[in-house]
């Protein structure tokens, strides 16, 4: 199991055990992390699972692909460390990953 931490907009920490191969978004939904809506269900079609990757992890998590960048245009308050959590797959190297949930989704 890989450990992930979601920090909700009000500062609440959610520490979850995630299965490798699942998406960060799926783990947020399974653990009822507030502020992740995932309206389209993970099809990279809505930009409502937007998160900020903790600065210490941006290099390991990597850059969004073109399609995700396009979708991020529709997200709220996009920052250089913005990602759509449905496009980040959990793997061993992400053990300890911290992501922050924005104030709102779109």
């Amino acid at each position, binding site marked *: 199991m890989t450990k992930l931490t979601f920090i909700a907009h009000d500062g609440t920490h959610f520490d979850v055990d995630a299965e490798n191969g699942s998406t960060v978004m799926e783990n947020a939904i399974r653990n009822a992390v507030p502020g992740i809506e995932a309206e*389209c269900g993970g099809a990279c079609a809505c930009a409502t699972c937007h998160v900020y990757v903790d600065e210490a992890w941006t290099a390991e998590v990597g850059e969004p692909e073109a399609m995700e960048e396009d979708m991020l245009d*529709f997200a709220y308050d996009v920052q250089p460390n913005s990602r759509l959590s449905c496009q980040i797959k959990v793997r061993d190297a992400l053990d300890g990953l911290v992501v922050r949930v924005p104030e709102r989704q*779109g």
Partner: protein
Amino acid sequence: MSGIISTDVLIVGAGPVGLFAVFELGLLDLKCHLIDILDKPGGQCAELYPEKPIYDIPGWPSISAQGLVDKLLEQVAPFKPDFTYNRMVSSLEKLDEGGFRVTTDENEVFEAKVVVIAAGGGSFQPKRPPIPGIEAYEGTSVFYSVRRMEEFRGHDLVIVGGGDSALDWTLNLQPVARSVTLVHRRPEFRAAPDSVNKMYAMQEMKELEFRVGQVTGLTGADGQLASATIKGGPDGDIEVPCTRMLPFFGLTMKLGPIAEWGLNLHENLIPVDTEKFETSVRGIFAVGDINWYPGKLKLILSGFHEVALMAQAAKRIISPGERIVFQYTTSSTSLQKKLGVSE
């Protein structure tokens, strides 16, 4: 458009569930007219994820969302449904003689014996960008679509976005507006490369300005914009003159005017019974993602089941007293005739 359009069943929403309703109602000899806010059938399947595979349609181990829409259109073609696109239903009125009168946002009038709401997540509407106070300027200085280009003549126009709408209007309104500033959060665009090249060429000629960044603030008074603040670009925070703004931030789904139809609602969903999928108003049904009942799952296949039962109830309302003989398409010659497959 003048005159009232009459139909047996008016279906609000032409997504997969609305389309399959045409089939089930058609088998019972009911004629359908569908209204959709999009310019094409298919709803979310066509608009949000046409190329994505769906794996839980019975009998189709994998089918693309657009593929499913195409197959449904083929399946309902024998029943010759009518479609009205680019329209949002606005008001609904109950008629004394039975049935309903439904008006669209472009004032077309429909009369139907039964209304089926198959509106999914609601109607697609332009997304409001996250700019504080923007509501105060909507409809006067901020527009989400261009109805008349004259609205923009002589104005300092700021267009926000990186898709085809943003680029097309940047190019088309440049000759009309006093100044055009295109704002996008990055130098890459989703729009057609040809339009992007044209935009860059016009920037070279100083005919318009393209700025990387995000609009974070507006100034103005009484609904009239004066300027916009752009942050995040290489020049730091800058203020540009702005008396008209066109934000293109994609679409979101909202229940819209259906909320005012006097139906009972459950958190923006429409509660129905699970025998007929009828709302709190007799003769108005709700099927697919927009309805709610205990155990509801937002699956296309659940919507398919719902329309089959709904059709039986709709038939009883439209043809009271008529005996409905339950038949299978596999063996019924009369159903096969309706489908145009009988020998």
